[in-house]
């Protein structure tokens, strides 16, 4: 008889795997992708493809020639970084910059630290912030959404709602007059507004979030804490001075808040492990986002706030442990 396998228990293993989870995330991004392809046309498709291909290519090059280690480019994580990076840049960004952003995201953001699961900062956001600081003009020239277009150049550009408010309030204009220049809330929710490739449609992103919740890919703690604290914090200012500060609904459905709360702040490697830690992390992201939007130099603060909170994750993990069984004994 052949020798029997002897291994420690358990002898059952879940069907779930890293790549199944990663491709689940990619699948949940499809609605948001379709909306952005509709409003920004061919350029959005090409930007997304460029980012995905370059992220996977850079991961391959680094693993094969620099680390000389195992190849993991098909585990789906590089693909997610690519999609999310594309989602975080304007649809008319020159392709060269997309490639540079991908190199920074994968190289500096992920592989430097040992690859999947070891990076302290969200790689796509590292790429985005690098581009933002290095190429501020290209990164803040947003095409206006139109119905599907195949034009690659000469798109009509215009300011995003957040920029309109930031600049307008800076000039001393009132919120009510500025709101006239902004699409109504229904259009904001659907995604008919200026902005980065994938951040525009709140509805599509929420749909993807619900799918991930149902498949237990993410838990509700971080997104709810993030969105809730952003809404609550902005409401305080709005209630005090409604002519200087926009209302919470505006904040929720503009800029990268939905994309950030649902996809970037829930990134496994760069967010806390325990539920209580996730809530603190989400609340921190929400507060910082609103502080930057209302008082910072940039009109948008989601990317910065998540990266700042990423830095606190090891501390949060140390301070916020799961509730131990038998810890608080309430008997009776």
């Amino acid at each position, binding site marked *: 008889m052949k020798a029997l396998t002897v291994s420690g228990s358990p002898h059952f293993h879940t069907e779930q795997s890293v790549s199944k989870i990663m491709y689940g995330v990619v699948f949940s991004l499809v609605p948001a992708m379709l909306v952005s392809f509709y409003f920004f046309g061919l350029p959005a498709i090409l930007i997304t493809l460029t980012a995905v291909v370059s992220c996977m290519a850079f991961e391959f090059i680094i693993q094969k020639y620099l680390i000389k280690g195992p190849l993991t480019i098909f585990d789906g994580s590089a693909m997610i970084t690519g999609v999310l990076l594309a989602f975080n840049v304007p649809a008319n960004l020159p392709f060269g910059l997309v490639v540079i952003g991908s190199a920074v995201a994968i190289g500096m953001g992920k592989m430097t630290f040992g690859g999947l699961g070891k990076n302290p900062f969200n790689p796509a956001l590292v790429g985005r912030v690098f581009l933002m600081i290095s190429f501020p003009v290209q990164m803040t020239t947003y095409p206006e959404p139109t119905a599907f277009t195949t034009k690659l150049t000469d798109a009509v550009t215009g300011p995003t709602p957040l920029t309109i408010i930031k600049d307008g309030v800076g000039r001393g204009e009132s919120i009510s007059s500025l709101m006239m220049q902004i699409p109504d809330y229904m259009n904001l929710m659907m995604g008919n507004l200026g902005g980065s490739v994938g951040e525009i449609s709140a509805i599509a992103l929420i749909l993807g979030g619900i799918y991930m919740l149902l498949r237990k890919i993410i838990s509700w703690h971080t997104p709810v804490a993030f969105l809730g604290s952003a809404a609550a914090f902005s409401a305080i200012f709005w209630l005090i001075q409604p002519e200087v500060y926009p209302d919470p609904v505006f904040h929720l459905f503009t800029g990268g808040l939905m994309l950030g709360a649902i996809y970037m702040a829930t990134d496994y490697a760069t967010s806390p492990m325990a539920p209580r830690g996730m809530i603190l992390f989400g609340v921190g992201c929400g507060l910082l986002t609103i502080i930057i939007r209302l008082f910072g130099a940039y009109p948008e603060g989601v990317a910065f706030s998540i990266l700042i909170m990423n830095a606190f994750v090891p501390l949060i993990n140390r301070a916020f442990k799961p509730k131990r*069984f038998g810890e608080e004994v309430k008997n009776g």
Partner: protein
Amino acid sequence: MGGVHPPENKFAEKRSVERLEPPKSVAIPLSQHLGAPAKAVVGKGDKVQAGQLIAKGEAFISANIHASVSGTVAKIDGVIDASGYRKKAILINVEGDEWAEGIERDESLIEDSNLTAEEIIKKVYDKGIVGMGGATFPSHVKLKVPKGKKAEYLIINGVECEPCLTADHRLMMEKGQEIMVGASLQMKALGVDKAIIGIENNKPDAIAHLSKIAAGYPGISVEPLKVKYPQGAEKQLIKALVNREVPSGKLPIEVGCVVHNVGTAFAVYEAVQKNKPLIERVVTVSGSSVKKPSNFMVRIGTPVAELIEAAGGLPDDTGKVVNGGPMMGKALNDLNVPVTKGTSGILIFTEKESSRPPEQNCIRCARCLTICPMGLEPYLLSSLAEKQRFQDCEDERIMDCMECGSCLYICPSGKPLLDHIRVGKNRVGQMIRERSG
């Protein structure tokens, strides 16, 4: 809190318990229970009868052991048991099937008993009853409530949350009355007037059957539970049934509970009412490739190979044989290992089912932490143990881990979390013993 839902695979749940004839020879280990091994009281060449005392459990935590067959003691020697180590055992060559005097072997139900609590506990001790769920803690110790503590509930564990196993399920279906009488005797021994039988919803027939019988036994109720692994663990079951949390490092009596398996309740019935020592038990033999998944009533000491033969033989593509459930059972390296008091199942895995998925980087998905029934952080404990930071392991409460295996089961990266945690527990245990001198 926590928990996982592995596939149930209860292939043998409709198979009635089948009695296997005694084999040609048995090997009865002296250590089949938690605590000190029993001391042999027979020697080579002695004639023994089934049910005769052959080893005495003298230490505070130990248990008596009885001959499961009649015949001649061949020798007392080291035999590889389910742990994979060679342990002392009494080997008996079987001759006929003579039973010791005083044991009632007919199946008629005896309900009434006029024994006192002390007398019941004495019988449970005499007859070598141990926890039948797998932990094999000597039952008489659990029935003695320590000074200063008070028992409120007897909890009867009919959860059988391990996938594949159906031994307890069948016992509940076929020996429901006996389990009730056994539970009543345990209640009397403990001095409690409330007993709860916890059964998971995946056994609706057992819930219905026992609920009907329980109506005739004052104080005993049946409580259906949601299906969740590891709900059959003592602390988790107490939480689910009476919503009390046993403090870290403490026993259930701390919160007024004593937990016994349904198999133990049945064994107590047989010991007290029928004078029958624990010399046979129900063992599930199952697996996706097993021809005839079965539940067998077998004599203690029977080689595992005989059970597999009775279930249709060892399939050609067998890769692993497990003693116990798929989540906590031990993989065997030898099929001549004897069945002991704690053997609840023998599971056969095909070669394909025998290997673990390849290991990848931890993606910090927090699944292990979310499902840990003890509220621990398996990813952290595992990596601390790997780095030999054992003091940190202790501070992170590694000793609370009951090795249920949920973390290793759920890990999408195929990390051997529990393997490292076991090493850590071992070393922390050593540290604690050294500290206390």
